[in-house]
Each structure stands twice: as C-alpha cells, then as structure tokens.
C-alpha cells in the first residue's frame, strides 16, 4: 500500500485487508479448517522462556501474500513471535499452524533470518557461502550444490546488489551489506514464507528501499512476508499490514490505520486497542479499564463491542 492511499477494508482484526468474512467468535477460531487458507495462524498462544511469559493469548492469522510488519517496544515479544512461527520455540498453550501444519514441519518452505547480533560475523565464510546455505535444506544430507543452486545464489546476490562481493568474508561487510546477504540467503531458499527479524534495522536509506522493494515484489508474487521492525516510518510506508504487539496483540490491520499517531501512543503504552469493521477504534479507557484494569487480554470479537 502506498503511503496516504485510502484504507482498504479490513474484515476483522484477524484478517486485515481481505474481503470480509463472517466469523464465529472466539474459540471457533481454533478450528483449523476455518484457517486453511492462512499461511500462519495462532490461536490463544502463550509462550516464553524459563518461567517468564514473553507472549500471552496471541490470536491472529496471516494471509498468503501478506507484507506484515510486527512492531512493538523492546521486550514486546516480536522475536518470540517469529520463533514460534518458525518452530524454533514451542508454545506453552494454544495452537499454531505454519503453512498448514505444525511449525517446523514445512521448514523447507520457510526462510527465517535471525537478528544480526545473533550471528558470529567473524566466522570464516564468504558472501557466496552464506547465500548457498539457503540451498542446503533442499539438497539434503549427501548432495553437493549443483548448477541450479549456483544459479539461484547468483540470482539472489544480483537481486540484492551484492554480486561484486561474492568472495568477501562476511565480517568485512557493512551492516547494510550483511542485511542484503542474509536476505539473499532467504531468497535463494525460494520460500513461501519469509520470517525476518529486524531486516531493516540500522541500515542506510538506500539499502532499506532496496530490501523493501524486494519484499514487496515477493509479496506481490503471493509469498508471505512477516518482518519485525523498530522503524515505524518504514512500517507505515512500506508494509501493507502492521501488527502492534506488547506481550499480546495490541492492534492488527492495514498499516495506515494501525500506525495512527493516537493508536501508537496507546500501543506503546500497552493499552488495548480493538479494530472494528472499517475503522480503528480506540477502545475507550472507561470501557475496558473499568472492566479489567491493567488487563491486556486481546479480544478477537470482530465487532462484538
């Protein structure tokens, strides 16, 4: 969606930007057949590490072809959400499906890119080596990379404009170049679902535009892109949908609606928001705070209020 263009019609909190669908409420959402079309689907998911919950009662569905930004303050559970979708973390309670099955089952159709800080950049691999890793899952245990794989790697490197750095050790790249290389690795995997943890953090504007153009094109081809970001301007301008979370879902819908200034103030303040029908409605303080002060439970009633 271009910035400033009129909002498309969100059908419900859980299915933004698509044609309206009638929903039974709440727990009927748990029926998988109702979401056979969703690429990622979570129903009342709670998850965390050790004994600390990072996410609570998250319910959402991501349609194929979505270009979704996940925003929220530090510690809001953005990375945890991606890890759940990738099958790297299991939920404590609730259910998740990724590409129609338990997360991890369709791993070869998923490309996950971790935060840059989690990677050992001193590792003795070149740009080409890293992008080739995107092909490894397709190859299985015994086969070596063939001409198809080299072609896919070359294409991906060309897409991100890193062809000139094929033999460079990754530690010698700038932050933006590292991002490009990791996106190229994801592209080389030819996935149906991209799960990207902070793909545009700390990079120059040119690289950001380039990476977003690529992701937009992938989404236009029907691939699903879920990316966490701290960059709200980027989320507003370049993503179709935005999911605002703070340990639970705060708001989910078309980016121009969710990233309304007032809404953001609420989201980052940790207050509850409900998207209803065609508009974003700030769930009035008196309405909810009276009912359950401080509670941040997500109501997926889609027009019950």
């Amino acid at each position, binding site marked *: 969606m271009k910035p400033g263009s009129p909002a498309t019609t969100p059908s419900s909190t859980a299915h933004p930007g698509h044609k309206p669908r009638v929903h039974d409420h709440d727990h009927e959402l748990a029926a998988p057949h109702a979401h056979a079309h969703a690429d990622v689907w979570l129903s009342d998911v709670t998850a965390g590490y050790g004994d600390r919950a990072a996410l609570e009662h998250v319910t959402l569905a991501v349609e194929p072809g979505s270009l979704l930004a996940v925003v929220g303050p530090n510690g809001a559970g953005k990375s945890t959400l991606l890890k759940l979708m990738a099958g790297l973390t299991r939920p404590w309670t609730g259910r998740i499906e990724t590409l129609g099955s338990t997360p991890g089952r369709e*791993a*070869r159709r998923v490309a996950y890119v971790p935060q840059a800080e989690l990677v050992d950049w001193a590792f*003795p691999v070149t740009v080409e080596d890293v992008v080739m*890793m995107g092909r490894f899952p397709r190859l299985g245990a015994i086969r070596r990379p063939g001409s198809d794989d080299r072609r896919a790697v070359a294409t991906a490197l060309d897409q991100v404009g890193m062809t000139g750095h094929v033999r460079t*050790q990754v*530690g010698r790249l700038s932050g933006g170049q590292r991002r490009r290389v990791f996106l190229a690795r994801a592209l080389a*995997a030819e996935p149906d679902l991209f799960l990207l943890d902070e793909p545009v953090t700390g990079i120059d504007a040119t690289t950001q535009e380039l990476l977003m153009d690529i992701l937009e094109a992938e989404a236009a081809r029907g691939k699903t892109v879920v990316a966490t970001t701290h960059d709200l301007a980027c989320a507003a301008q370049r993503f179709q949908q935005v999911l605002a979370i703070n340990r639970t879902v705060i708001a989910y819908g078309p980016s121009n609606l969710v990233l309304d200034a007032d809404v953001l103030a609420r989201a980052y303040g940790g207050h509850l928001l409900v998207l209803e029908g065609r508009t974003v409605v700030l769930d009035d303080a008196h309405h909810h705070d009276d009912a359950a002060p401080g509670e941040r439970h997500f109501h997926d009633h889609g027009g019950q209020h």
Partner: protein
Amino acid sequence: MDLVLEPLALSFFVRALVASMLVGGLCAVVGTYVVLRGVAFIGDAIAHAGFPGVVVAYMTGIPFYLGAAVAAVGTALAIGYVTKRAGIRQDTVIGVLFAGTFALGVFLFSTIDGYVADLFSFLLGNVLAIGFEDLIGLLVLGLVVVAIVGLLWKELLYATFDPLGAAASGIRVERIEYLFLALVALTIVVSLQAVGIILVVAMLITPAATAQMLTARFTRLMGLAALVGITSAVIGLYLSYWVDVASGATIVLVQTGLFVVALVLGPRGLLGRRRGVKAITDAVDEAAAAA
C-alpha cells in the same frame, strides 16, 4: 636423507607414523568445528572422561579404544543432554563432568593390585607402542569420522554458523549437535594412544587455530588445519625419534611452534593485521578463488 629413511625400516616406527598422521589430520578436521564453535574446553573434558573407560578396558582385557569410546561418547552426549534439559550453562556441566569422570578413572586405577603399566602411558600416550590391530581399529574409527563429516559438512557448517537459521530451515540442529559431540569423542579416542588424555586437546585446537591466522575461508581453513596437523605429526615423530624424547609431547610442541609463528607472522595474525597485509592476502585469496 638416511635420517629420514632409516627409521622407515622399523615396522613400529611406520605404524607410529601412520597413526600420528591419521590422528593429526583427523583432529584438525573435527577441531575446525570445535574452534569455530568456541568450545575448545569440550575436547579436554571428553578426553579426561575417556580415562575411566581406558582403565576398565585394561582391567577387563577388552581393547582400550572400545572402553574409551564408550566412556567418551557417553560423557559427550551427557554434556549435550544435561545442558539442553537442565538449564545449566555448558561450561558448568563440562567442569563437573570433566573432574568427576577423571576422578573415577584415578579411583579405578588405584584399585588395580600390584604393578601395572605406568600411569604416564595412559595420560600421555605412546604412539611408538601402537600394535597392528590397534592401528586397524583406529583406521576404521577414523574412516567413520571422515565419512560422517564428508556427508554432513553442509549441515555442520550451517548449524555452526547460524543455528537458528539452520533449525528454521529444517536442519535437525539438535541432532547435529549430538552428532558433533559424538564425533569429537570418537576423534579423541582415536588420538589417545598417540598423545594421551592430557595433550589431545592440543591436537584438536592448535591446527585450526593456526589455520585461522592464515585464511578466512572455511574449506581452506579446514584444509590448512589438516595440513598443519599432519605435518607437525610427521616432524614431531621424527624429532622425538632422533632426540629420543616423548613423541606425543614433541608433536604438540611442533604444533604450538607453528601456531606461534602463524600468530605473529600470519596474514591474519598480529603483525599481519598491523601492516595491512591482511587486505592484500584477502585480495590474493579472492583472486585465487575466482581463478
């Protein structure tokens, strides 16, 4: 020339030479992953854990490497399991098992009545004493390790560089982790007779550390490490023969010497970085790879 050829007429020396080269190369290949993961301490722990196995094998008369393999692989997998399930830091688990298993070895050793072969040969190895059957056993174990690394180098590489990305793309990172620990354990068992429990960690770590001073490419790093491992095994064994000193210690000293040279003079070493030689050698690296 005679100095080089003369010992080759002695069958025990030839066996020792083959065993040392095997150990030098094998340790370097597996050690490359150990160094890149930053888990050098694991090698030491697993080696010490092999000690009770060696002693039990000695007491019961089974081949020493079977006893060592069971004890070392068992401890290696235990390290992996306890770290994953109990939420204890890996270095803590290693510290506990390291000392505990070694103490068990010493305990068992001290129960043996009367005079037994000296403790030193267990702890420091004696490759010159290696028998033909032992050599065959080591060769088989070595081939198993090489075959596994050859088949799974992609998975090992991906899981070492980016465990999260690898796991998300369907690589069974947890299984690879256990397999890696088992590989390290087997490699150590293969090396025990050559350099013994105390020095084996050097065989694992030093060649890869040396190669790191020379290149920034994975395959070249592994190749160079193997070259360093094999070369220093040959030089060290000959030196020990000529001067009549302990073979394992001499091999390790040669490796250490090569490491110091690479550390100081290598393109990625201390002086190399300072002089900006690194940029030049990297350019050479790239040109060579492109050719």
